[in-house]
């Protein structure tokens, strides 16, 4: 895959027989509208044939899978892959997705780190009553064996943040064959990971990249055994009834600060949770609930975030997400529409910061709500945008439901009991923890293995 001088980087589909360049290609443009790469889009026929080939292939033995993943992690982080150096790759993600380059760099490091430890991460999820192999001596007296629920796992990848791609390689560690449909906003990361996995020694029939146009996106889910889909409310509605699809829906991560703590001690944590990683993640804080008057917290938060300035995403000091100007204006219009009736502290007259090259950064927004059940508290937007609401124990945990991550800064253990046991809250942190804190081995939205694996009793003589 060589790039013609000044031309578009060809991003081939990666099928079961190797790279495939289709006639139907999509120009991937950066935030200014300039073409960067040309992505080969495959038809459903190609998807079906690839999935069939993946299903017929046997995975490498478990130890080898672990070694290959570790090798792939190193290649992903450092090697020239598909004609693209690690630096070129990060630049492309930053320019096309509008993600600040420092965020891309950190994310790429964390993807590599997680990739090299996938095998251990997956073992964290294994039920303690099970073994990995039916040949384990323990099955002589009867034992649970941990097994795949299917053979081919399909992923409709997200494009908001490269870090989301650290999850699906876990399926390879479990022996699944994996096919990824990339997002137009970041086809580079999954292309690079799949290329690295192949360069490390995974066969072409173990892991594939299948870009498709929007109308044909369902072909991959239909053909695979199990699937993972990222998306907003619309996607959740579409797939909610499908037991073969694992949904990674809206994050709507939140923070709660009760009266027995002083929020001033946690202002850094709050501001970072809202704006860290460019505020583009599902684990960024969407709403903050505070016991007492929210106004001083809003004032302090607005002052802190007001200092963030728009810069082209590839600049070292960039911290805010950048979009094509028209898309940024659409986000702004949506924000202003949804914010009607709230008290703006920052961004009330707009958040678009035109960069003069056809792109625009989205500056932070802080809005005060007058009650904890205001609908705005659930409005998650892809930039540092936070809603601050008053909360009292009388309001209970209802406003805190439907959160991917909840950081509760409180000494009230009874409240924590209720939050930890609440099924619609994915993860609970207490104390001074940013909502985007994540570590290998910890579940992000449950363990992926909870969906991909099952336990089966094996008894043998």
């Amino acid at each position, binding site marked *: 895959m060589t790039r013609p001088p000044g031309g578009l980087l060809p991003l081939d589909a990666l099928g079961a027989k190797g790279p495939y360049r*289709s*006639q*139907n290609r*999509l120009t991937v443009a950066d935030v200014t509208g300039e073409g960067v790469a040309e992505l080969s*889009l*495959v*038809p*459903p*026929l*190609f998807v*079906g*044939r690839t999935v*069939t080939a993946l299903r017929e292939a046997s995975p490498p033995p478990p130890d080898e899978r672990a070694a290959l993943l570790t090798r792939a992690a190193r290649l992903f982080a450092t090697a020239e892959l598909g004609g693209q150096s690690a630096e070129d790759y990060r630049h492309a993600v930053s320019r096309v997705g509008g993600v600040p380059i420092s965020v891309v760099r950190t994310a790429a490091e964390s993807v590599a780190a997680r990739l090299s430890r996938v095998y251990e991460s997956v073992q964290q999820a294994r039920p303690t009553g099970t073994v990995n192999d039916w040949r384990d001596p323990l099955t002589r007296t009867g034992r649970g064996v941990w097994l795949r629920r299917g053979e081919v796992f399909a992923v409709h990848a*997200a*494009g*908001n*943040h490269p870090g*989301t791609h650290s999850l699906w390689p876990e399926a390879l560690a479990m022996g699944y064959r994996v096919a990824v449909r990339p*997002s*137009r906003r970041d086809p580079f990361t999954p292309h690079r990971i799949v290329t690295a996995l192949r360069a490390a020694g995974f066969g072409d029939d173990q892991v594939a990249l299948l870009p498709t*146009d*929007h*109308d044909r996106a*369902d072909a991959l889910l*239909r*053909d695979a055994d199990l699937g993972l889909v*990222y*998306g*907003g*409310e*619309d*996607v959740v509605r*579409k797939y909610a009834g499908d037991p073969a699809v694992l949904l*990674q829906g*809206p*994050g709507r991560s939140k923070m709660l600060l009760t009266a027995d703590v002083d929020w001033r001690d946690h202002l850094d944590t709050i501001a970072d949770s809202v704006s860290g990683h460019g505020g*583009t*993640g*599902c684990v*960024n804080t969407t709403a903050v609930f505070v016991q007492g008057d929210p106004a001083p917290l809003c004032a302090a938060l607005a002052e802190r975030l007001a200092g963030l300035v728009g810069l082209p995403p590839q600049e070292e000091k960039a911290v805010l997400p950048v979009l094509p100007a028209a*898309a940024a204006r*659409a*986000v702004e219009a*949506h924000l202003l529409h949804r914010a009607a009736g709230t008290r703006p502290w920052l961004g009330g007259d707009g958040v678009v910061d035109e960069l003069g090259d056809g792109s625009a950064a989205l500056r932070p927004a802080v809005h005060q709500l007058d009650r904890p059940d205001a609908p705005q508290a659930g*409005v*998650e*937007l*892809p930039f540092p945008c936070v809603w601050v609401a008053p909360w009292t124990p009388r309001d209970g945990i209802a406003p805190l439901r439907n959160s991917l991550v909840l950081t509760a800064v409180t000494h009230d253990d009874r409240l924590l009991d209720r939050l930890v046991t609440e099924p619609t809250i994915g993860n609970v942190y207490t104390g001074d923890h940013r909502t985007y804190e994540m570590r290998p081995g910890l579940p992000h939205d449950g363990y992926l293995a909870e969906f991909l694996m099952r336990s089966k009793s094996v008894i043998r003589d």
Partner: protein
Amino acid sequence: MLPAVPEVLNLPFDAPLDPDEFVRAAMEWHFNPETGSPYWLERAPTLGFDPRADVRSHRDLALFPNVAAELRDVRVEDLIPRGYGPRPDVVGVFESGGTTGAPKRVVLLRDWLDRMLAWSNANLDAHGFGRGANWLGIVPTGPHIVGEFFRGSATTHGTHGFTIDLDPRWVKRLIAQGRGHDADAYAEHLVDQAECVLRSQDIGVLTITPSLLERVARRDDLVKLVNEKVRAIRWGGTRLDPDSRQIYRTEVFPGTVLCGNYGSTMILGMAGERPGLPPEGPCVFDAPGPHVTFSVVDPQTLRPVGYGERGRVLVNHISASFLLPNNLERDLATRIEPPAGRVGDSVADIAPVATFENETVIEGVY
């Protein structure tokens, strides 16, 4: 004694003729009170021009308004030219798919069906379809015209025609209602039925839509069966993208002739794939002119786009049996130069506009 159909309208399909002379004869036939249809004779005074005097050439057909929408309500008896006499040889009444509202209706007369089949059979010969084979078609047997053409092709070019009925309106309704799983189940049901025929009968030609062909291709045992028995696959009804076409030709059905058709009920026929195209190029369809002609136009101005550019397909049907000029179809196509001596355009890569991701969703971060 009725006036005879003018010879120029009834020449054999491969006879050389002057397209403008052909158009003038058609105008004389359709707008003469003795031979024209009640529908067109009643419509003529509202046109603002006199077709018999003012339409002198193929180009002048652009004077006509697009009356296709009126075919939703016209009595079918009023569509038959009086020149066919009191007992016209009507093969059947057929309907469009109704994608853009209520279905539109046309009448198929025997002489046009015979002409269309002769033209189509010659195209199949040019592609190397062996004569005398049994045909299996997964096609609408009604109310769309394709089932009638299938049976005609199967019994004139081939021997016996086996049909599996496909109801595209039901599939469209299922999909519109978000019942994708039901649409899938229906499609698999069709393939199951086709498999029964393929296993038990000597099928040499398969007529199928691209989306069903893709389902066939997903079943290894069926691919094997098709490769063993079927010598030619004729596809049509929806688009077949160039990448899939190449994969079929080179990997899935390498020993089988693959030939596309682009047609519709409102055309009262179809355009056949140009023989001898390279596998990697686009699929080009040549219209059976001068009776059926295409132009690829800008949908706003209705002016032709340049060769190699994309636009909407505009269709003229002009035969003794039927007149429907200036019908703007919803398909997009690339404009291609027609074969030497033909009027109108050839078309390639019939397709809807490609989309990748929904641009309008704003809330959410993925």
